[in-house]
């Protein structure tokens, strides 16, 4: 479930990156982060499948919910890392403009 959710996130980010108008949103880092994690979990899944065989595809409901919750948390963490980096690097200068704005 964690692998599936991360792969979906990676594919969605890749499609958004492909249709971007400019590189100001710095989606590349998010794209690589999700693909990197997806590949690592794919290996984890392969090893788990080799150990459990068909049982791998019939997880208990409790485990599935926990894995789904973990997958969503992983995606949220990835998005938080990306947005913090975006605000720090500030490629569009929006943060700088907002901070240098005089109080009226």
């Amino acid at each position: 479930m964690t692998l599936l959710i991360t792969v979906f996130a990676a594919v969605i980010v890749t499609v958004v990156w492909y249709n971007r108008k400019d590189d100001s949103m710095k989606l590349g880092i998010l794209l690589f982060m999700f693909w990197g994690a997806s590949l690592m979990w794919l290996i984890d899944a392969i090893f788990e499948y080799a150990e459990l065989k068909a049982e791998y595809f019939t997880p208990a409901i409790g485990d599935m919910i926990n894995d789904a919750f973990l997958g969503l948390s992983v995606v949220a963490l990835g998005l938080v890392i990306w947005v913090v980096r975006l605000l720090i690097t500030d490629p569009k200068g929006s943060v700088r403009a907002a901070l240098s704005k005089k109080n009226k």
Partner: protein
Amino acid sequence: MACFLVSAAEAAVITAVEKAEEKKELKASESNTEIAEKVTIPMSRKLKWLTYMLWGGVVLLAFEHIWHGEVVPWFPFLTAMSNPGDAAEMFHEMATVGVAMAALITAVWIGMCVAADLIVKRSVQTAVQKTTM
């Protein structure tokens, strides 16, 4: 258990290599303008893709390990290190799953570099053909 540590080690090495390569390319472009004008993807940029994939995967997998209680904020940080039996299992997992993870990411990155070079070469050839027509 601690499979992400293998990728973390690779990421640390590649980050150092990437920084060195970036400096080398900067020096080369300052001394020779022909290199800067060449239409190719710089090696430092390609290495950056690999570091992003490795560090990204490491951070997200470390979070998963914290979630499962395999990584803790106190010494020795890995719960498997508390007894020799678990430690041996952890090292076996690092040698199998961990190495496979790092190898797959590197293999995918090599494929990406080859594809990216072909795409750039193709677009340059198309542009040349259009100008000669």
